[in-house]
């Protein structure tokens, strides 16, 4: 590395001295022929393009300052769940995150059935399995019940354009919110 650099440096110094000599009127037997000029132009262009390429590889590093004006920000409760939802849509982290989402929703649905719906824990687990805890088939299905979704609803879900997972989680959360309130399903369906 250093040897080639030294060599190039020597060539450069010689060329520069020769150039000054030509300017001063010393004839070195070199004519400004088209071939010579072309050669110089090509060499300069190649070296120039190398430098430009190097620029593309370096990122400028100006000083970046923080935002001291803003108050310190703290998370909103539930932001971890939102993060999980985002990674459940990502390619690499999909399965683990998806499992976390479903597990958490399942646990909360069960807890809500016990605490707000007044069910016994076993009863709540059974309701989750049959899907009878909600009248939203999408939510019931999402938490593991084998409920069929009507074709019309499937088409509408497909056309809604929202990510199917986000939409289903949203509906499941709404269904859990409604557990124990007046518009919850009165008893077990089917």
């Amino acid at each position, binding site marked *: 590395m250093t040897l080639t650099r030294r060599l190039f440096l020597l060539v450069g110094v010689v060329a520069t001295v020769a150039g000054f000599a030509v300017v001063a009127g010393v004839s070195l037997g070199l004519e400004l022929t088209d071939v010579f*000029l*072309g050669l*110089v*132009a*090509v*060499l*300069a*262009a190649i*070296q*120039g*393009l*190398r*430098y*430009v*390429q*190097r*620029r*593309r590889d*370096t*990122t*400028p*590093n*100006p*000083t970046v*300052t*923080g935002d*001291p*004006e*803003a*108050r*310190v*920000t*703290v*998370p*909103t*409760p*539930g*932001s*971890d*769940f*939102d*993060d*999980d*939802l985002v990674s459940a849509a990502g390619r690499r982290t999909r399965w683990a995150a998806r499992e976390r989402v479903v597990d*958490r*929703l399942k646990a*909360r649905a069960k*807890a*809500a059935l016990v*605490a*707000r719906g007044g069910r016994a824990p076993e009863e709540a687990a059974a309701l989750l399995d049959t899907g009878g805890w909600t009248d939203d088939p999408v939510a019931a299905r999402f938490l593991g019940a084998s409920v069929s979704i009507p074709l019309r609803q499937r088409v509408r879900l497909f056309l809604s354009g929202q990510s199917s997972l*986000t939409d289903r*989680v*949203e509906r499941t*959360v*709404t269904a*859990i*919110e409604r557990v124990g309130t007046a518009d919850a399903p009165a008893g077990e369906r089917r």
Partner: protein
Amino acid sequence: MSGGFDTERWTGLDGLVLVAAAAGVFTREPSLLLAAGLGVVVLAYVRVASIPEVSLRIERDLSDATPDPDDEVEVTLHVTNEGSRTLFDLRVVDGVPPALGVDDGSARLGTALRPGATATATYTVTAVRGEHAWEETVVVVRDPSGAVESRETVDAETTLRCEPELAATADLPLRGLTSKYAGRVETDVPGSGLEFASIREYRHGDPIRRIDWNRRARTGELATVEFREERAAAVVLVVDTRVEAHVAPDDETETAVERSVDAASVAFSALLDSGDSVGVAAFGPDECWLAPSSGVDHRARARRLFATHPAFAPTPPDGAFFASVALRRLRRRLASDAQVVFCSPLVDDYAVSVARRLEAYGHAVTVVSPDPTATATVGARLARIERDLRLRELRRSGIRVVDWGDEPLGVALARAEAGWSR
């Protein structure tokens, strides 16, 4: 030349110069060669560019160093060039304390500064409870071409101290666990008091005032009227200051810890006014303990503690926290007859277990829980459901819970009290 660094801003210009020169030679176009020559001049300038020794004096003036909460404080930043050279491109970013937000003006300054000259920036912050120290001011100096920069920090110590008055704006109802001193908590212990409890057979030494003379007239027997004894309680206000408790529904709203500390300071004042002895503790990485006591000195100590103790700072702590060790230490400090008022947003299950364990150890626990949940996202809605389930779990295990939403604390307390049965 002080420790400047290359910003890589002009990297690649040499390439453009060479390409322009090559094109000029190839096309025999003198203007292109001339442009390349200009580029060489710029390159030469960049090569020799440097920044002078930076010597700045920074002073900061506050319009009020000890404001009340929500007061607007005007901050004036004076930057003086004490060096001997002109700074052509000076950028100053003031280190506003993390808990304070700039409302008006800018905490930044960009200017050129001659030797001895002073530049000024003015901005306004809104005071919040706590002791806020300004951090280091960041100074960035660049040479005119932007090829070399230097980043330095200058410290100008400034502290804003905001200590709210402890005002009892709401009355905190206590549970039945009391100390042996007279106070205002009605117990089921018969004795002297105001509310009738029972009548029993006269014993030698009973005060004459408490003899039931009607009964004596009717039946000829001596009987003593007993009242429910009113005693004082020893209460420890425990504030959840763990990292988990530092949550807020959005960026503008107070964090749950700030509201918890507010609730604790209101309760402190109310309980002290009614003759109970009150202590303060933080459940978090920064340790804080004020043993239950009463009196004017104690009030002043607590006021300072709520305002300036790092445990109650509005910024999340960064130290490691061993919750079970902290809980054990707290338990050792609590006297057996001490009640606990636990101020926590209840955003995780551990807060619930703290309340339940303290209750299980025989301390009557009341949880005051500021609600930090929002409804903007699915996760936020789920967090609201989870918090609601936690409140229900606590209530089911016999712990009193005050769910404090957006309303004033007094309203939340009154609503909660209406739902409690004695």
